[in-house]
């Protein structure tokens, strides 16, 4: 595809996903993930794909699992509450090695724990990509499907309302990614009666004629795989950290705003830097540790009551002063990133924190639109 198109984030992600080979999507409406479902329903049939309007998020994610297990690139999508319903199946995908992409167009940034800590059973992690805008979202959509297939793991793509509904011009570029081997593990139904039939299940036990390593051995192999992913797939972005006395950490759409403020403060002569995890899991702990080695202050701006800040603390092992400068922040739709996501307010909070002033509490946004 050549030339620029003006697309909203949802449409750009759907276009990128189909270009990445997505052929099966199942979803259930919920703002701000509804447009993904609508665009999928519109666009997938024309490439021979299928979009099923599932009757629950649980059904949707299990359909996607089935499609992925027979070899298709498959995805499902929702937002916070729906992600909670999908957690059992995300754990299942991690433990039975099914590649699956879950788009979570989150309400705000309160799904950090849910995405990075997982809500299902067993020892697993969920690779989670948090793009800062549409351009990065297009790239990370390709990466998400690639990484899901490469390691046979579930991947969460963490967007938000701003990303889903903001238009930008894009040529939908396709990133260069290494070629992956054929999915010789996938079920195609042809191996019955040969003694070599295939299986997919979370206990890893094979067939009676090839019983495998047993759950203990299998789950240890899965744990090792997640260690490899943590080593090789970590992504982050940083600027001005070399001589920074203060480093501000933020992710997703909020990261883009914070970066803008940090660049302005730099121009004004302040020794301030910026650090943005792109993978929320694996969290770029070593990189953050290195980037903040000489910093006196680490400020964490996230639009929730303090979730990523736990990972920041773990990364620098309490060796530096860490303060939360974000907070719970919504507009009255309950979807948007809220009044804190404002360059002037971010600046005010950075300066207040550094000078020992209390952070100004913004008034509650109320339910204006509903009255």
């Amino acid at each position: 595809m050549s030339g620029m198109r003006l697309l909203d984030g949802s449409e750009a992600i759907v276009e990128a996903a189909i270009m990445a080979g997505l052929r099966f999507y199942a979803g259930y409406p919920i703002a701000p993930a509804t447009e993904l479902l609508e665009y999928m329903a519109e666009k997938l049939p024309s490439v021979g794909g299928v979009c099923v309007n599932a009757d629950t998020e649980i059904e949707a994610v299990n359909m996607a699992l089935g499609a992925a297990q027979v070899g298709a690139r498959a995805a499902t999508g929702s937002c916070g509450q729906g992600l909670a319903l999908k957690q059992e199946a995300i754990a299942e995908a991690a433990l039975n090695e099914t590649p699956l992409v879950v788009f979570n167009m989150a309400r705000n940034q309160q799904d950090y724990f849910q995405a990075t800590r997982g809500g299902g059973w067993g020892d697993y992690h969920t690779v989670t990509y948090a793009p800062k805008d549409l351009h990065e979202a297009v790239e990370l959509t390709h990466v998400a499907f690639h990484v899901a297939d490469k390691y046979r793991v579930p991947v969460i793509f963490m967007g938000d309302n701003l990303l889903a509904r903001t238009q930008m011009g894009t040529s939908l570029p396709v990133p260069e990614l290494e070629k992956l081997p054929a999915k010789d593990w996938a079920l195609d139904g042809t191996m019955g009666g040969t003694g070599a039939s295939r299986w997919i299940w979370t206990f890893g036990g094979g067939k009676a004629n090839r019983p495998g390593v047993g759950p203990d051995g299998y789950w240890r192999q899965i744990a090792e795989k997640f260690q490899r992913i943590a080593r090789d797939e970590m992504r982050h972005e940083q600027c001005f950290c070399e001589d920074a006395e203060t480093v501000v950490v933020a992710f997703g759409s909020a990261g883009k705003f914070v970066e803008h403020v940090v660049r302005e403060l730099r121009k004004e002569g302040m020794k301030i830097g910026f650090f943005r995890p792109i993978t929320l899991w694996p969290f770029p702990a070593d990189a953050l540790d290195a980037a903040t080695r000489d910093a006196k202050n680490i400020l964490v701006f996230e639009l929730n009551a303090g979730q990523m800040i736990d990972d920041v603390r773990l990364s620098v092992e309490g060796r530096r002063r860490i303060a939360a400068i974000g907070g719970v922040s919504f507009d009255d739709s309950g979807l948007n990133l809220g009044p804190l996501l404002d360059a002037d307010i971010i600046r005010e909070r950075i300066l207040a924190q550094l000078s020992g002033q209390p952070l100004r509490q913004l008034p509650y946004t109320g339910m204006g639109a509903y009255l």
Partner: protein
Amino acid sequence: MNVIDTARPPERAASRTATFKPSLLLSEHHHLCPGCGEPVAIRLILEVIQELELTQNNICILGHGCYGSFIMQMDVDSTLCLHGRGPAVATGMKRIRPQTAIWTLQGDGDMTSEGLAEIMHAAARGENVTCFMLNNGVFGDTGGQMTASSVIGQRTKNTLEGRDAAYHGNPIKLAEIVASMDGAAYVARGSVHNAASINATRKLIRKAFQRPMEGQGLALMEILTMCPTGWFVPPGEGAEYMMESLGKVYGLGELKDVAAAASPEDAGV
């Protein structure tokens, strides 16, 4: 009806009565109880798969129940999915591989308790898949507790005095409900309590595979299976107990066949 006295060792030890195994089983051993009806039902299904020449064109999705351990025994491509979600997984597979016979192996607990939404919506959509429900009226695997299909009066581990409609609610006759749905092409209930019922059930299973493969919609094939362990009766008395309890509520035979006159088999016999 005898109730097993668990204070004494069993009088009769279990003995293997048949050594012949269908070729789609990888071993003649399984881990299910003596007198269990599930291995009989599974064996029938596998034999029909061979008869219909689907051996190298089928994928089985197993739910959570005693039958689940057959993932290791069955020589067909298979996955063991989350409890109750089989028809959703089957949907994803069938939409990507429409030429493959996709079938679920579930129990009454898996399908009627945990997975009611999945089977109902798959039936409503008319997915071209075959869903088996091995109905023994209990959660056998977890030790014999009440499911949505336990019948009134049935003693289970959590209905010790028998299922009481006023207190525990009423059983769900799932096959009857699914038969009323437009997307369901074939709904039947068989049983494995004696040779005649086994032979009759084999014929029903054939059609349960054929209708979805003809693109007519979903097939629900319920099979009543003995669970002497979960019913607390001696293995040899499972069949009799089943027909006196479940058998009185769940009538055997075809409940729906959209292609009743379409196939020669139906017209002929």
